[in-house]
């Protein structure tokens, strides 16, 4: 309750969460507002915004509705952003807990693998992975997670190293609890809060990476994405700049909203930590 109140007390968090919530509503109700395929042709090509009210934001070179694409693109962006972050955090937390609790050579080898992944830029990794396995939504999610799990892994390991020395973990060993149960029930829940504040950075990064992949034509070809819309508009950037600018603004404000929400969450968690 008080964490929620602290979140409400941070203006960053409130603005971010408000924006994010409205994007989420847009994403959820996109198929209701525009039930037909956003890739279908609905009007003349390159209709300017605010001219024909059946296509309020205008149309692209092929006469596809930009607003419909924008709304459906919100679905892809948020879906990929959230799931990529989820996969990255789950993978990172598993590696971090295993490394932190095992110690010894298991810790050493897991950390060397983590460092090896960290030296390769996440975007290049995703690019290489997608060009091998081919673009589809689950593969895009996995490719992005592949470059993002190292952060959570290192944070969780550092937390686990301090938590495993605490008395309640010793108490769990004394009563004879299985090491896997100790990791899952006693250690992991206490190692996760710092990862939650990392999550917003990962979600924002994942949304940008997905847009970049789509921009290069490596997104799921059956889905409208913001990156894809920007790439589509690029060819007519001089005559119809709105085709790139509008999805670009959507991307910018989503990433901004995610970051602001993250600030709010950090404020809420920081308050609790100092209280303890």
């Amino acid at each position: 309750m008080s964490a929620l109140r602290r979140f409400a007390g941070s203006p960053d968090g409130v603005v971010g969460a408000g924006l994010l919530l409205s994007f989420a509503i847009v994403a959820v109700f996109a198929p209701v507002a525009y039930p037909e395929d956003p890739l279908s042709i609905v009007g003349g090509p390159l209709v300017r915004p605010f001219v024909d009210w059946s296509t309020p934001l205008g149309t692209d070179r092929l006469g596809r509705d930009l607003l419909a694409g924008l709304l459906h693109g919100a679905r892809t962006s948020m879906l990929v952003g959230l799931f990529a972050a989820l996969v990255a955090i789950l993978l990172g937390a598993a590696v971090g807990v295993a490394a932190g609790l095992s110690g010894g050579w298991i810790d050493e080898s897991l950390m060397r693998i983590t460092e090896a992944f960290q030296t390769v830029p996440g975007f290049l990794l995703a690019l290489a992975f997608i060009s091998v396995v081919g673009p589809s939504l689950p593969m895009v999610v996995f490719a992005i997670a592949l470059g993002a799990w190292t952060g959570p892994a290192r944070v969780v390991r550092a937390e686990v190293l301090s938590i495993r020395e605490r008395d309640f973990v010793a108490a769990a060993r004394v009563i004879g609890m299985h090491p896997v149960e100790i990791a899952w029930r006693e250690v992991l829940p206490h190692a996760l809060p710092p990862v939650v504040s990392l999550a917003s950075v990962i979600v924002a990064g994942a949304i940008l990476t997905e847009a970049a992949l789509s921009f290069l034509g490596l997104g799921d070809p059956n889905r409208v994405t913001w990156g894809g819309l920007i790439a589509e508009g690029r060819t007519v950037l001089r005559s119809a700049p709105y085709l790139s600018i509008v999805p670009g603004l959507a991307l910018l404000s989503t990433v901004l909203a995610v970051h602001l929400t993250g600030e709010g969450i950090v404020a809420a968690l920081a308050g609790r930590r100092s209280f303890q």
Partner: protein
Amino acid sequence: MSAPSILTARGLTKTYRTGGRIVPALDGVDIDLAAGETLAVVGASGSGKSTLARAILRLVELDAGTIHVGGRDFRRLAGAELRAERRRIQMVFQDPALALNPRGTVRSVVADPLRVHSLVEAGGQADAVAALLDRVGLPYAFADRPVHGISGGQRQRVAIARALATKPSILVLDEPVSALDVSVRGQILNLLLDLQRKERIAYLFISHDMGVVRAVADRVVVMSRGRIVENGSADAVFRSPRSPECRELLDAVPALPGR
């Protein structure tokens, strides 16, 4: 000849290396504990008494020495066998605020050992938890309180209930009252004495407070720099301490009128 020993430790040795310096935490320590008695281990901070407690529970790996619990070589056990044998020897920590999972409830803490060792039938858990809470003087209404929502003394009662859950024959008590308010220390000590009288549990009682030790101990060993420097019945140690370390600890007890 005294009663047969249920905990026998011989030659316990442990050295820590900190920044190139080698610090002996335990240097050939022998311990014998008979059923139903209280052996107090006293010493100043850094004397190795907490390392001793944790080493006996296999929370700290020793460099050398043997530990027999109920006749079994405790140091040779590993994996599932060790976890099963842990039932016999339980521990109460110094600060119950640190020793209980901060996200837990009274019920989850007390029921953990019951579940881990499958000590109750399905559906019998609530009764078992109620019985354990009753033994430490807490009403069953406490079961669903979060552990951060109860007082320090109540938390230590919960920690004692958890330690009793597996019906151990030995309890290692590591400064069990020194983190508590002075007003509840006596209550917790009386609870421990009561439990011992009724159930004949042996206590290995770690403390630096000779006032507390006088109230509970049958026998006393005094530790200093990882070694045992004095060993005797509580009466003898309190009447005529031989080691300077022991006299120092006794001098630290404030003289109360009427004692």
